[in-house]
């Protein structure tokens, strides 16, 4: 049984038909990437998975269970966590309070403490600044916080929406290393990226999205070699 399955998902914003029949699967333990131009529907796809937007047709299935009846917060309770586009940290809360919110649904004190130590190990910067108001963190630190906060939920499926956006190249690499590390520790990852080259270099498989439709899907290595992908997303002629 796949971890996540989207079957012919159609989603709308008013009259805008943003997703026009998306089908994809993510298997347990994989990193799957979703690439596509601006406005292709990547963020919208993640929003339909987390329940922030309900598909008009089609189904989103998590470990065999149709998510249609559940609200966003109930879907989080089923093991899905998301780092939203643009980070979405709580600017007025401190770093530690943001991380607390990541673990909102958990009650196992020792488990939460373990997750916190893991996050601080991954991002020592956050530990140094745990009492700082999150709005005053640098962009890169905010991205770390958004990732750390998602990990505090101890998710089985982690959705990442452009985690490299606006980061210096060194930090981008650090973030991608972290994603790989998280994945090796057992978290399944669905990664949306503009930086297709980086995404394809850590992903197992990928989907290419164009105006609300999936136009290509393959293992990452093949996508990297694909002429159309190279031209459109890897900036190669």
């Amino acid at each position, binding site marked *: 049984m796949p971890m996540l399955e989207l079957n012919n998902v159609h989603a709308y914003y008013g009259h805008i038909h943003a997703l026009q029949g998306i089908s994809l699967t993510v298997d347990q333990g994989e990193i799957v990437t979703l690439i596509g131009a601006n406005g292709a529907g990547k963020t919208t796809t993640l929003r339909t998975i987390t*329940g922030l937007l309900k598909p008009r047709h089609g189904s989103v299935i998590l470990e065999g269970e149709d998510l249609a009846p559940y*609200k966003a*917060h109930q879907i989080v*309770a089923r093991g899905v966590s998301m780092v*939203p586009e643009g980070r*979405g940290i709580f600017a007025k809360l401190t770093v530690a309070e943001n991380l607390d*919110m990541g673990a*909102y649904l958990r009650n196992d004190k020792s488990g939460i403490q373990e997750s916190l130590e893991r996050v601080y190990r991954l991002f020592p910067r956050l530990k140094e600044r745990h009492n700082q108001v999150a709005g005053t963190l640098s962009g890169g630190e905010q991205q770390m916080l958004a990732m750390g906060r998602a990990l505090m*939920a101890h998710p089985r499926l982690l959705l990442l929406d452009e985690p490299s956006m606006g980061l210096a190249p060194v930090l981008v690499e650090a973030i991608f290393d972290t994603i790989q590390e998280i994945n090796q520790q057992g978290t399944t990852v669905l990664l949306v990226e503009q930086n297709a080259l980086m995404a394809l270099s850590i992903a197992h498989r990928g989907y290419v999205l164009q105006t609300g439709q999936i136009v290509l899907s393959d293992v990452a290595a093949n996508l990297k070699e694909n002429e159309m992908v190279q031209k459109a997303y890897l900036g190669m002629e």
Partner: protein
Amino acid sequence: MKINLERLSWVDVFLWVFRVVAIALIIIGIVNTLSSGKYTSEQWGTLIFAGLAQGSIYALIALGYTLVYGILLMINFAHGDIYMAGAFTAVFLADKLATTGFLAVHPWLSLLLLMLLASTISMLLAVLVERIAYRPLRGAPRLVPLITAIGASFAIEYTFRGLYGPGFHSYPDVPPLMGDVNMGTFAVPRVQLVVFFAALVLMVALYYFVERTKMGKAMRAVAEDKEVAMLMGIDIDSVIVITFALGGALAGAAGIFNGLFRPQGVYFFMGFVPGIKAFTAAVLGGIGNIPGAMFGGLLLGIIEALGPNLFLEGLGIPAANQLKDAIAFTVLVLILIFRPQGIFGERLSEKKA
């Protein structure tokens, strides 16, 4: 500040003149009063304590406005009536306790019971109003819940009027609250001190709740960004219910304090003026800001207590004490002109305005 003459409109000129005149009048009033030496410092002390007690009641009510505004960016204009409902209901229990003699034997326990009852009633009513009048309209244009708020307000008022008539119902005297406490050179009614400290305890408890508990943090998270809060697994609806419940409970307690404080008692329309004054206090402190509402309430109480003697008499206005209510509303107008974001508030951004 640099003034661009070409862009200076008549409205700006008017506002500047208004600001200067307002400040001048206040200063002239204060100077005249103080130089006349009509009041002793003991008298001012008495007034300040009265102001603090009344102000702490405003603060408790103001917290309800500010909590709801912080999360939903709406003014719950039925809040004054939620305050009335608790106090009004508890007056019947107070009567029972007094006639059975329980009040005389266990006065403090009686007060606690009254507070619990009033808080519970106000809390339930606040939650009910949210459920019926606001939740179905979430996402509607902002004027719409304002209209249902006014509808809810009338519905509550006239339900009580219909059930219990338009007259006043007084709280019985509570023996340990009678009399004065000696503060050295002057005396302060005991009831004022009790009300002030009890209100202070509630405010500290609320502050602790919002700052330290998981639910309090979730409230602040929801106030900042509802979608991201959902992604944390926070059930927005339950946070909103808890916000209304907290505001209601504080208003209920404030209703009891007010009942003890003022001999005339409760009636169906009693929430209107304190409601608007507490709203003024919330705006004064910066609407949406919790310490702001506490501070704004206390400050408004003091301004109101000192105002008639301090500013108005000095200006030669007769029967200044009868203009008490006008002072609160003047304060509202002045804040809106001088500092619309309030003392602790951030400047309203486009998104929030």
